[in-house]
């Protein structure tokens, strides 16, 4: 017997399914009601003679109001329920395991903070909230894991975050759900959910190049970013230590929160949002860094924030 219902392997899956069953019940009730009435009336009021005519009934206000208001109330219940599930999907908890995802025609590339890289296979531990920060190198893709009931478009030029908390170890389908060209249906993979200790073993297994942040640090040197962005606040560019997550004032007087998108924009289009007190002298790195390198740089900027805490220990 083939499966008729998908596996349930994330915390949100049960909530999605509960609403789904409620909707199913409503659909079955109204579907049977309409079908039943049609069949019943078709038989009971079947035209007996060729000249027969129906009763002259033009309508009824009570009925009209009833079948306007009742569906309206039911749909509002569904709306609130659906919105609350969606809110949970849209807001990851504070403590998450972050993983970077780059989609390209036609593969998924994953970068763990500890430095592991994977293609079309993503290892995560069971029971921890995982946050994916995704982007695309080319066209729009979509990260879809049916067993987790999560899905989000992976957009070029933007960072979209997705989060889930796996509840059962196992291997689950990963699909690209936004049509992306010739081998769209080949852009598939697996999410491997592991017990925490197995995950630790796996994590310590293959990291050859050091952490993602250290790869970013090396890149930061190689691209000579460090000549202007200096840790002593004496450089020609803003000091990056402790910057991530802060709010900065721009030349235009507006303020902006330093998040992944802002760091990305500042590397690719430096002149777009200049921090107050600095000159627009930074060259663009459009075309010089890949999406994956950008993510390494972002992770490096993030890690600069964490440094004082590390030394405090």
């Amino acid at each position: 017997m083939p499966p008729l219902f998908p596996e349930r392997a994330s915390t949100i899956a049960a909530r999605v399914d509960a609403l789904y069953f409620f909707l199913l019940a409503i659909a079955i009730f109204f579907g049977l009601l309409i079908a039943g009435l049609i069949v019943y009336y078709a038989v009971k009021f079947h035209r007996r003679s060729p000249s027969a005519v129906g009763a002259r009934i033009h309508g009824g206000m009570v009925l009209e109001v009833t079948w306007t208001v009742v569906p309206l109330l039911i749909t509002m219940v569904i709306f609130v329920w659906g919105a609350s599930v969606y809110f949970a999907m849209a807001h990851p908890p504070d403590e998450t395991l972050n993983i970077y995802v780059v989609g390209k025609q036609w593969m998924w590339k994953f970068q763990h903070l500890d430095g592991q890289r994977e293609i079309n296979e993503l290892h995560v531990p069971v029971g921890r909230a995982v946050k994916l920060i995704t982007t695309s190198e080319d066209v729009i893709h979509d990260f879809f894991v049916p067993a987790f009931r999560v899905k989000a478009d992976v957009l070029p030029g933007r960072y979209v975050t997705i989060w889930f908390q796996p509840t059962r170890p196992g291997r689950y389908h990963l699909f690209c759900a936004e049509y992306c060209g010739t081998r769209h249906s080949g852009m598939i993979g697996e999410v491997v959910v592991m017990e925490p200790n197995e995950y630790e073993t796996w994590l310590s297994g293959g990291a050859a190049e050091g952490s993602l942040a250290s790869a970013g640090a090396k890149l930061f040197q190689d691209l000579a970013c460090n000549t202007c962005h200096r840790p002593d606040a004496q450089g020609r560019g803003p000091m990056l230590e402790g910057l991530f997550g802060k709010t900065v004032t721009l030349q235009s007087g507006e303020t902006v929160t330093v998040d992944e998108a802002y760091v990305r924009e500042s590397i690719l289009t430096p002149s777009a949002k200049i921090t107050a007190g600095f000159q627009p002298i930074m060259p663009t790195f459009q075309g010089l860094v890949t999406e994956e390198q950008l993510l390494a740089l972002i992770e490096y900027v993030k890690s600069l924030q964490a440094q004082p805490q590390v030394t405090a220990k």
Partner: protein
Amino acid sequence: MSTVLLPPRHYLNDGYGVRSWLLTRDHKRIALLYLAGVTFFFFIGGAMAVLIRLELATPPGDLVTDETYNKLFTMHGVMMVFFFLIPVIPSVLGNFLVPIMIGAKDLAFPKINLLSWYIYVVGGLFTLYALISGGLDTGWTFYTPFSTVASTTNVIPAALGIFITGFSSILTGLNFIVTIHRMRAPGMTWFRMPLFLWSTYATSLINVLGTPVIAITILLVAAERVFHFGFFNPAVGGDPVLFQHLFWFYSHPAVYIMVLPAMGVVSELVAAGCRKPVFGYSFVAFASLAIAVLGFLVWGHHMFVAGESVYSALIFSILSFLVAIPSAVKVFNWTATMYQGAVSWETPMLYAYGFIGLFTIGGLTGLFLAAIGVDVHVTDTYFIIAHFHYIMVGGTIMGYLGGLHYWWPKMSGRLYNEGLAKLSAGIIFIGFNLTFFPQFVVGYLGMPRRYHAYPPEFQVLNVLSSAGASILGVGYLIPMVYLMWSLRYGRLAGSNPWGAVGLEWTTSSPPPTENFTETPRVTWDAYEYPASVETDVA
């Protein structure tokens, strides 16, 4: 019963030459020109559906290459949406019926009406050229940046074809709006109009207001491809999601362009099939307008997973629930109309039953998609495919076939074989459900749409679907045979074979070129049946 004869002069024997058809300004002849056009595209699009279902009968991509498969579903979508579903009911049934139902001699602008058909043909030729010269693989949705920078297929001729055909929809809609406003016969007030006209009017509003937006959007895509302009390309700071906003601003209302006319047809079928007034006439009429207006406010529900902000998602979600209400009101009113009716089991009424049932399932599954929490899981899967085929095939095509069978005697003057017609209606109903119901299940399981190959555990449901498609295909071919046959050998219909009321049944079958021998004066409401009716079938 009186003896039935063909009228001596009618629109079909008013000239026989090629010129009398290709240069005609008679709305009835233009309706038949459209009938030829949409039928042609329906069978081309249908042939592609057959190949798609054959490929999906087995999990690996083994029948055609992935490239070919992508072109198949793209061309299936383009042909069916832009060249069949959108024009079919307004251009065939609407063209034939709008002037007759209001007691006019023709549409307000007969030359523009003929021009619309030629525009449709030219747009169709561009699209056919795109198909023959190698096809197109962007999906009918043309999502950027794939369509503008990545795809190497014939995007431009197809885009031009859609752009051009859009003007055909606009001109047809414009013609209907002006005709309904200005050409009604004496006494034909707005609230005496058949409900088909209300829904045609609402559809025309969407055509006039929405189609230009898809036209400009497609033009932007073409300009980005041809001139390497930047509109949606992230490389110059463009936003590919902005394309989706523009696209769905038209293409969601386009769903109502497809289904509203079918709703209008079903109102006529139910009234005539029960020989009584449609329950809650004004509610059904205003529901059409409500759908047209609300339909413009819900496009964002196609983008719940496309980086939309949480709050705009909430707004689009609640508006999407609101647009479900007028559709539900219509379904309840049609059902209530059957109560104490003289309910017929003839072919048009069978299609009306089919429409109401399938549209109900389509509408109810729409609630799943408006509920964001569930939509995230089912969007871009086969659940969506099933849902919109229930609306467009179960709804629009059922309504169209019902209408075609209902008005065929008026259009041709002859009756088709009722037994074969009932048989094919049944085959279509069964084939349809077998094709698309399993797709709800496989969609919730997580099978993404537009997949050339899929994991083996989805196979059983896909085989059911493919089996259903072959039944459905047979069901669609049978009417081709008996309708053609009836043109020559069918019994003469007489002016009113159904014993229905409505101006179209007061004139001869087929009607004369200017529809009525003298301008009718309307003194009665729509669907006002006498105490008993007489049908004048031979």
